[in-house]
């Protein structure tokens, strides 16, 4: 009987250990992202992020009511700040599509994406606060067919290109 209880205890310990590690991986973001990272729970950057995603967002919100904190780190896309910047459809640093009540909180820098720094598409009540957007090939922040969103305290510098004169916001 004691052996059975002991085995159950070890199993429970291992389950708790791996479950906890999985949660930590989902919450904390850093390093290289090569395919869209969709978040389903509150998340934060714990280091700079380099994105090599082609034709799709780097980080996407997969649910409503979530918060992404940038914690002063940088998310960098595939384009160069020093060469001409042709926009490529679908690419964005952060995308909030068809959600509500999500929050993107700076400080933090989102730069060098082939289309948008931050894209809010058909989303409502989203807050984007204290984020810096720079050298993205289309808009720094774009709001597409959404309502009651709040963009506050952001810095949008040097976004757009002559063939896609979208602008800062």
């Amino acid at each position, binding site marked *: 009987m004691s052996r059975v209880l002991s085995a159950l205890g070890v199993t429970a310990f291992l389950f708790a250990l791996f479950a906890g590690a999985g949660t930590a991986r989902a919450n904390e973001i850093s390093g290289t992202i090569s395919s869209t990272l969709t978040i389903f729970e509150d998340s934060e950057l714990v280091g700079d992020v380099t994105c090599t995603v082609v034709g799709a967002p780097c980080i996407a919100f997969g649910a409503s009511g979530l918060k992404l904190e940038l914690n002063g780190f940088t998310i960098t896309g595939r384009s160069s700040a020093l060469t001409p910047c042709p926009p490529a459809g679908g690419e964005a640093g952060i995308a909030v599509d068809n959600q509500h009540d999500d929050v993107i909180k700076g400080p933090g820098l989102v730069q060098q994406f082939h289309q948008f720094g931050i894209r809010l598409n058909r989303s409502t009540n989203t807050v984007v606060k204290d984020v810096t957007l720079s050298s993205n090939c289309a808009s*720094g922040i*774009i*709001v*597409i*067919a*959404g*309502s*009651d*969103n*709040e*963009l*506050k*305290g*952001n*810095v*949008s*510098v*040097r*976004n*757009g*290109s*002559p063939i*896609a*004169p*979208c*602008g*800062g*916001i």
Partner: protein
Amino acid sequence: MVAPGTNDNVIEDNTVLGNTNGIILVPGVEGNIIRHNIVAGNPPVQLSVTFPADDGVDIKNQATPGTNTIDDNFCLTSVNAACPAVGRRGDKDEKEKEKGDDPHQP
């Protein structure tokens, strides 16, 4: 803001500099509030020199005039917005507050 139905959003206290356009409102959007932003140097002068056909400005309001609130921004160039405006952001709010506090005002 690029599609009709982009309504009732608040864009405030942002700094928007050196982009091909600063802040754009496209035709059909309404109820949006654009206030207390610093929007200048859009587009950068070299972009205007190299691409003279580019018609970027600090605030480009292509929506029906009066359907959005564009107020108390620091800006220099615009389409259908009150630019140039170079007062300190929040001046208008403070003046209105002072006016309300002044016993000599009617």
